[in-house]
C-alpha cells in the first residue's frame, strides 16, 4: 500500500510537469492553431539561461525569474518572426518551422553549453515522499492555471485575446489589435513552458533533456482535447499517475508504450480528446 501511495504521489508530481507543458501547447494552439513543437527547445534554452544566472549570482530564484522572462521573450519573438509569415499559408508550414526551430535551438544549446550534462538544482529539498520540491511543482502549475483562468475569464485583456483567437476579423473591426494578442498568447504560453522546463529538468540538463517530457506533454494535451485547457491539465495528471504505475509495477522501459496505448485507447473512444465537451468521462 505504501508503494502504491508512493507511486501515486510521484505520478502527481510528474503529471504536474506534463500538465504545464500541455497547457503551454494548448494556449498556443487555441491562439494560432499551431502545435508548437519548438516548445521543449524554448523551455530548454530558458532553463540553460537559468543555470547560467544561478551559477553567476548564486541565487536559484534569480535564475528562475530569468528563465520565465527569457521564455516570454523567445515565445513572442518566435510568433512575430517565424510563425506570422507562414500563418496564412498552411498548417504544415508552421509545423515545419517549429520543427526547424527545435533542431536549431537544441543545436545552439549544445554549441553554447556543450552536449555534456550539467547538474541542475531543484528549487527545494527533493528528498522523501512528496518532497517540498514536488509540492512546489504541483502548486506552481495549479497556481499558473488559476492565474491564466482569471486572466482569460475576467480581465478585458483576456477577453480581447479570446476574441482575437475566435473571430480575428470581427475582433479587428472592434478595435482589438489581433496581432499583438496572438504574440501575447505565445509569450504567456512560453512562460508556462519555461516553468515546465524548470520543473522537469532537474537533476541534469543536457540538450535532449526535455524530449521525452515533451512527448508526454503532447500526449496529455491530446488526451485532454486541444480545445480545453482544463482537460489538458487533467490529462497531464491522469497520464502522470498512469505512467507512474506502469513504471513502478511493470518497468520504466514500458512507459512510452503505455503512453501510446493510453493515447490510442482514449482517441479511439473520443477522437477529439476526453474533455472537448463539458461532459467529463472516466478513462
Amino acid at each position, binding site marked *: 500500500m505504501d508503494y502504491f501511495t508512493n507511486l501515486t504521489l510521484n505520478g502527481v508530481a510528474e503529471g504536474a510537469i506534463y500538465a504545464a507543458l500541455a497547457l503551454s501547447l494548448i494556449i498556443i*494552439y487555441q491562439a494560432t492553431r499551431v*502545435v508548437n*513543437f519548438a516548445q521543449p527547445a524554448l523551455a530548454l534554452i530558458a532553463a540553460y539561461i537559468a543555470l547560467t544566472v544561478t551559477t553567476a549570482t548564486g541565487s536559484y530564484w534569480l535564475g528562475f525569474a530569468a528563465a520565465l522572462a527569457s521564455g516570454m521573450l523567445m515565445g513572442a519573438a518566435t510568433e512575430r518572426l*517565424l510563425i506570422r*509569415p*507562414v500563418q496564412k*499559408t*498552411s*498548417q*504544415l*508550414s508552421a*509545423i*515545419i*518551422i517549429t*520543427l*526547424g*526551430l*527545435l*533542431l*536549431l*535551438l*537544441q*543545436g*545552439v544549446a*549544445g*554549441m*553554447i553549453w*556543450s*552536449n555534456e550534462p550539467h547538474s541542475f538544482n531543484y528549487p527545494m529539498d527533493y528528498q522523501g515522499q512528496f518532497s517540498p520540491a514536488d509540492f512546489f511543482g504541483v502548486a506552481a502549475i495549479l497556481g499558473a492555471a488559476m492565474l491564466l483562468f482569471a486572466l482569460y475569464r475576467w480581465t478585458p485583456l483576456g477577453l480581447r485575446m479570446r476574441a482575437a483567437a475566435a473571430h480575428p476579423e470581427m475582433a479587428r473591426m472592434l478595435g482589438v489589435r489581433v496581432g499583438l494578442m496572438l504574440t501575447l498568447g505565445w509569450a504567456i504560453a512560453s512562460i508556462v513552458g519555461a516553468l515546465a522546463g524548470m520543473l522537469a529538468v532537474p537533476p541534469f540538463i543536457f*540538450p535532449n533533456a526535455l*524530449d*521525452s517530457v515533451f*512527448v508526454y506533454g*503532447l*500526449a496529455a*494535451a*491530446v488526451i485532454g482535447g*486541444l480545445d480545453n485547457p482544463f482537460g489538458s491539465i487533467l490529462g497531464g495528471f491522469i497520464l502522470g499517475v498512469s505512467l507512474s504505475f506502469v513504471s513502478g509495477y511493470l*518497468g520504466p*522501459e*514500458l*512507459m*512510452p*508504450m503505455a*503512453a*501510446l496505448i493510453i*493515447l*490510442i485507447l482514449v*482517441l*479511439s473512444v473520443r*477522437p*477529439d*480528446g476526453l474533455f472537448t465537451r463539458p461532459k467529463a468521462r472516466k478513462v
Partner: protein
Amino acid sequence: MASSQKSPATAAEPKAEEATRGTPKPRGLVARWNALPMLLRHILAACAAMGAVIVLTSVTGQGENTRIASVGFYMLAIAGLGILIGFSGQVSLGHGAFMFIGAYSTALFVLHVPMMPLWLNLILATAISCLAGLIIGVVCARLHGPYLAGATLALAVALPALANRFSEFLGGPNGLDFLMRGTPPALSDAIPNTSWQAWVVWLTVLIVLVFLANLSHGRLGRQMRAVRDDESAAALSGIRVARVKVTAFVISAGCGGLAGALQAYMLKTATPSTFTVALSLSLLAVLVLGGLGSLWGALWGAIAMVYVEEWGDELAHTLDLGTNVANNLPHVLYGVLLIALVLAWPSGVQGFLRQLGNALRPREHSGYGTPSVPPTHEGK
C-alpha cells in the same frame, strides 16, 4: 497549370488536372516521350537511374558508395511519407517506427532463419511493416491534425524502447548484429562489396518507386488527393474515405519498413538508437525541404538527409571550430535550412526547380497562352 502535355479535355476537369501536378518526369523531353504509356515511362526512367547509380558507384570509393546507398533507402522512406502527407494529407511524426520494424524484422530473420534469401527477407519485412501500418492506420483513420501527430509521435518513442525491454530477444541498447552475404562469390573479385550493396539497395528502391509513381498518378492517387482536399466532398463523390486513408498509411508504412530493412542490410546491424524521434522528425523535415507532392522532392530530401550532416562535419573541420560547435553544427544547419526554406520557398527544392525551369523556357508555352507558374503545393 504548367503540365502542358495534357489535352484541353482533361484540363477542363480540375481533379484530373491536379493529378498531373508534380509529375516526376525528366525535364526537357519532347512530346514523344510524353506520349508513351505511363508505366513504360516510369520503367525507362528507373532503368536510366539504375544506370546512373552503377556508373556513380563505379567511379567513387567505398565510403561514397555507402552514402549513395543511404540516399537510396532514405529516399524510399521519404517517398512513402510523401505519399501519406502530400497525397492523403495525414501528418505522421512517427515514420522512424516503421523503419525500426523493418530493420528489426530483417535482423531477426537473418539471425533465426539464416537460409532465407535476401529478396524473401525484404518482402517479409515489408509485409510486417504493412501489417503494423494497417493496425496503426485503422486506429488513426479517425484522427486528424495534431491528434494524429501526437499519436504517431508517441509511436516513434514507444517502439525503440521495446528493444530495451525485451533485451534477450531484441538485443537491448546494443541492438542486433548479424552477418549477411554481400557480393555473390562468383563476382567477388570484380565488384567491391559496397558497390554491390548499393546496387541491391537502389534496384529495390527503384522497383518500389516505379510502383509509387504509377500509383500516385492513377486512380488511388487521385482519390487520396480528393480526400486530402475535402473529406466530405470526397465521401459524397463515392470515395470510401477511411479505406483510402488506411491504404495510404499501409503503403507508406511498407515503404518505411523496406527502407529500414535495406538500412539493416547495409549496416548489418539494427540498434534502437538509430530510430530515435529525431529520425522521424528529420524524415518529415527533409520531405518538406525537398518538396511535397513529387517523388523528385523525395530525392532532394534524401540527398539533404545524407549530405547536410556530411557537409556540416566538413565545414566544422575546415573552420577548425571547437568540438561543442562542431558536434552540433549539422543540427543547426538543418534547422536554419528548414526555416529559411519554408519562409522563402514553401514548395521546397523541387518547387524551386520547377519554377526555375518554367522561367528558363517560356517559349514552349507560347502556343498555349501565357506561361504559368505551377501552383506551389503546400500540403494541408
